[in-house]
């Protein structure tokens, strides 16, 4: 008989695996709300994961490693920002190039790090009182600092998006850049800021992967999580709170797959590895139908470059 502690550890792992997806999803939601589609998440996550890993490894400080990964992701996003905002290039091509670049960069420089393992990962910090709550405590509040940071990020970003002037400017720029410009908003500045923010959070997702969830280095360690994050943006209908549920749903599929393998199931591991991607298909199909019937739609000027003087 399986003890209920198995379920609790499964759910605690769900949160961890979900956090890896949550950061980049939130970041992409904000970039897309500003009108910038960044398909380079996978690349930025890989760069964040790699830099996060080597900095943690060499300094023996996972916090420093995580921070370095975040910044690396942000810097990588500036390539996309420059091409799509300043040069008004095609955002799909630029984003895909960034993903390919991230893959190539980490494969090349990551060769000598393959199969190395971190000794000190992000430590678990049980929150006083909260971690004592039955079931809830061990699942949500016996995690590391970065997970708590992700909770705060979701709520703070939700607040910024809907309740502040910053969020208002952002939404206006993604919906109707011309109108925003006519009201004195600097469209280019807003788009640069939020594309950079998206990069920081993609880096955070990658860095969290290698400093906590899978503290070793493998080529292509993000394994398509960046693409799942892009699917989650649609699932979340560009809303940070809904992104939380989507990320944990997929985190759950991820965690379940490992748990089943650990329990020695007879299902071939290749099938289990497919689960998150099959899940992506299903979720995208369902959410696309919902998006259609509820008339929720992507930011209207998503992917469209803004040109100030048209004539």
């Amino acid at each position, binding site marked *: 008989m399986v003890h209920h502690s198995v379920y609790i550890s499964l759910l605690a792992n769900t949160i961890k695996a979900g956090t890896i997806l949550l950061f980049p999803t939130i970041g992409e939601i904000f970039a897309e709300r500003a009108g910038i589609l960044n398909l380079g998440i996978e690349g930025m996550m890989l760069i964040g994961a790699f830099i996060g890993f080597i900095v943690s490894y060499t300094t023996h400080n996972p916090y420093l490693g995580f921070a370095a990964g975040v910044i690396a992701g942000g810097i990588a996003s500036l390539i996309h920002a420059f091409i799509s905002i300043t040069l008004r290039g095609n955002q799909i091509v630029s984003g895909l190039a960034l993903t390919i670049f991230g893959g190539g960069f980490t494969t090349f420089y990551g060769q000598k790090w393959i199969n190395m393992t971190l000794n000190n990962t992000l430590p678990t910090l049980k929150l006083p009182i909260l971690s004592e709550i039955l079931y809830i405590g061990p699942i949500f509040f016996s995690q590391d600092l970065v997970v708590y940071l992700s909770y705060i990020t979701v709520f703070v970003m939700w607040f910024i998006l809907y309740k502040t002037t910053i969020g208002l400017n952002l939404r*206006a720029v993604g919906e109707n850049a011309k109108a925003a410009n006519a009201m004195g908003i600097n469209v280019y500045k807003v788009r640069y800021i939020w594309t950079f923010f998206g990069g920081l959070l993609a880096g955070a997702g990658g860095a969290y992967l290698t400093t906590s969830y899978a503290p070793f280095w493998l080529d292509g360690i993000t394994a398509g999580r960046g693409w799942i994050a892009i699917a989650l943006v649609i699932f979340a209908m560009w809303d940070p709170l809904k992104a939380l549920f989507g990320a944990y749903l997929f985190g759950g599929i991820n965690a379940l797959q490992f748990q089943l393998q650990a329990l020695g199931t007879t299902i071939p591991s290749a099938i289990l590895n497919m689960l998150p991607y099959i899940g992506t298909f299903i979720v995208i199909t369902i959410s696309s139908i919902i998006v259609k019937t509820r008339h929720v739609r992507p930011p209207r000027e998503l992917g469209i470059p803004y040109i100030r003087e048209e004539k």
Partner: protein
Amino acid sequence: MVEIALETRNITKIFPETVANKDISFKLKKGEIHALLGENGAGKTTLMNILYGIYMPTSGEIFINDQKVIIRSPLDAIKLGIGMIHQHFMLVETLSVLENIILGLKEYGFVINKKTVKEKLKEIESLYSLQTDPNVKVWQTTVGEQQRIEIIKVLFRGANILILDEPTAVLTPQETQSLFKILKKMKDDGKSIIFITHKLEEVMQIADIITVLRRGKVVKTLPKYKTTKSELAQLMVGEAQDCNYLRKKRETNEIILSINKLIVYSDKGTKSLKGIDLDVKRGEILGIAGISGNGQKELVQTIAGLKKVAEGKIIFNGLDITNKHPRFISRLGINYIPADRLAMGVAPNLSGIDNAIMRRYYRFPLSKNGVMNYIKALAYTKMMAKAYKIKLDNPFAPIKLLSGGNMQKLILAREILENPKLLIASYPTRGLDIASTQFFRQKLIEIANKGKAVILLSEDLDEILSLSDRIAVMYEGSIVGILKAEKADKNTIGLMMTGAST
């Protein structure tokens, strides 16, 4: 002594291919409504965009309260107290009215202080009797409301100089009158207003001073009390205009198109046509009047085969065309001029030629065994441009580079050249100057005179009244009445458009 609120000296703006403004100098006094009158392409909008910081002038100077200023961006303009109400509203449809009003402002805190905003809104609303609900989303409001929101937005920023670019183009007669009341109130408060238009009637009604522009230059500035409509028209076009159309009345009772109990649903799933019955007779122009959003667009789109019929029948010349393919319908002789030219009338990134031949590219002689003959296509396009006075300097350039008026002329010419048995014309003269408006109205009349039929949609009631034989008025997806043109007047139709029973 009267103070000058704004002055331009020798403003010139040169675009790569055209000189849009040449040495424009004019003065706007405080507490004055100054009309800028000119045909399409006269350079009115370019000049205003320079004042609002959207374009930089090639040369020339701008003075505000006798201080020389350089306006680099809309933000600069707003800071100088200039507010602009664009022809195409600058509203973010998914945001609420309140959010649109404070967009870009910083003084309401990082976390938006809705209470202070609403208090200030109340003040402005009561001062100028402008009513809005700050909590609804802009896409839920009517065009008239959207204009009020734009005006509030500008007043909210404390603008002293207001620029209105063709503000009445989308309004009903009643809405226009209430706009004029608001403008007069603002004038009495000492605000200065620049009113851009090509409608003479409105100029005579609202303006104090009139500056006429033609081909990018100032023709004359004159006070209203010293001028007349016909003088202004003459200054605008450079020649006297006469407004008599050659209409031969032909009484036939032969029905060309018959619509029976037509029900159509909108994209949102609500009924946009609630059982329409309508007959169109051979040789007539049938006007359809209504405030936008009451089903006129859906009705004509359904006839053209662009919308699915849920219930009912459409019979054309004895043939059932209900839910038939658009090309099948157009080849039967029903041609459709859409209201939204950029979205449905042209393919913006394709060339002038490609857009001109859109109705016939697949037919001989433009196409033979699936291979297109561009030499013949070019000849056809040139013929069209010449016959219909379309300014198409480079037929290979993307059509989106043409001015709105020229684009509209091309669409009209394309459909008329198909020699339709029934022409559906939605807002055919929107954005056209006086001369081309008359030219195309004459064309519509010729089609009717030849024993064919025209369905005319327009928000310009004068146009409908002067051209139509019968006028059907729509309200909330139903036809509330069909009037004979000689028995109809503006007021009755205006009331029927708002749902009042007659």
